[in-house]
């Protein structure tokens, strides 16, 4: 089972407590009535579906209840980092830093994991 870090609970929690909620950073149209059919189609259905790094939403459904964002590799299933909803998409440097410190943390001690 995957362990996912909830940025609100500030803890690694088991995957079963979470639900997946699709791609992140898709802004709702500011003026919905002005949208053409094609623009609506793109907003509702067209997703990047990348092979590799993916910015996605998760919800800590059976925990704090909050939606947040995660950076996950769709090939390895490895989470690089998670961050609170509403914060901007992290840059390459920030992601590299976060995943390096997470790797160091988990190597240092598994028993420090706070539920």
């Amino acid at each position: 089972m995957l362990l996912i870090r909830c940025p609100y609970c500030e803890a690694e929690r088991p995957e079963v407590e979470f639900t997946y909620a699709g791609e992140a950073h898709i802004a709702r149209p500011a003026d919905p009535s002005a949208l053409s059919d094609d623009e609506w189609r793109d907003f509702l259905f067209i997703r990047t579906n990348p092979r590799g790094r993916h910015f996605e939403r998760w919800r800590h459904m059976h925990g704090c209840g909050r939606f947040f964002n995660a950076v996950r590799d769709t090939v390895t299933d490895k989470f690089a980092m998670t961050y609170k909803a509403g914060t901007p998409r992290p840059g390459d440097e920030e992601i590299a830093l976060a995943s390096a410190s997470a790797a160091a943390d988990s190597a240092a001690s598994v028993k420090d994991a706070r539920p």
Partner: protein
Amino acid sequence: MLLANHPLLGKTITGDTASRLSIRAAEDVARFSLRIDPASAPSAGAAFGTPLPTRIGGMVEAGGRTALQLGPDEWVLTAPGADSDGIADAFAALQEPHSLVDVGHREVGILVEGEAAALALRSAIAFDVEAMAVGTGCRTLFDKAQIVLIREDKNRFRIEVWRSFADHVWGILHAVSREIALGL
């Protein structure tokens, strides 16, 4: 006619010896779900009579009343059953925008005590129960049922579960306590 329905009332599961594992239905209490802006938490704590914890998982207990933070703006408050109306009145007088919902009849409590308590819970909970700090609590899943788990002491846990899931959780605890008693 309305009938009180407590699926676990008076039930007990004794393990091989009481010191290793003992599971029983907890006394009923008053429970409230509180949603409020964390910036207003101090005034909510004043209304409740016990300060609210300020981090998720944190728990504050004073004078028989307990406040546990479940989410960024969500707390569960428990108190002796007789305090229920007084708490509702105190929050009705609170000027800050908030929502206080009486969920006292929605849930039942189960106490899991003894040296093997963490072992028993581990059978159906996916996180490291042993690593949970004493005096904290969290919402999680027990098998497929959502619960709130509180670690009251090193060897004493409390499960709060919706009454419709209570039989399911109880059945698993029953099976697990047999396995532990038989040394499986």
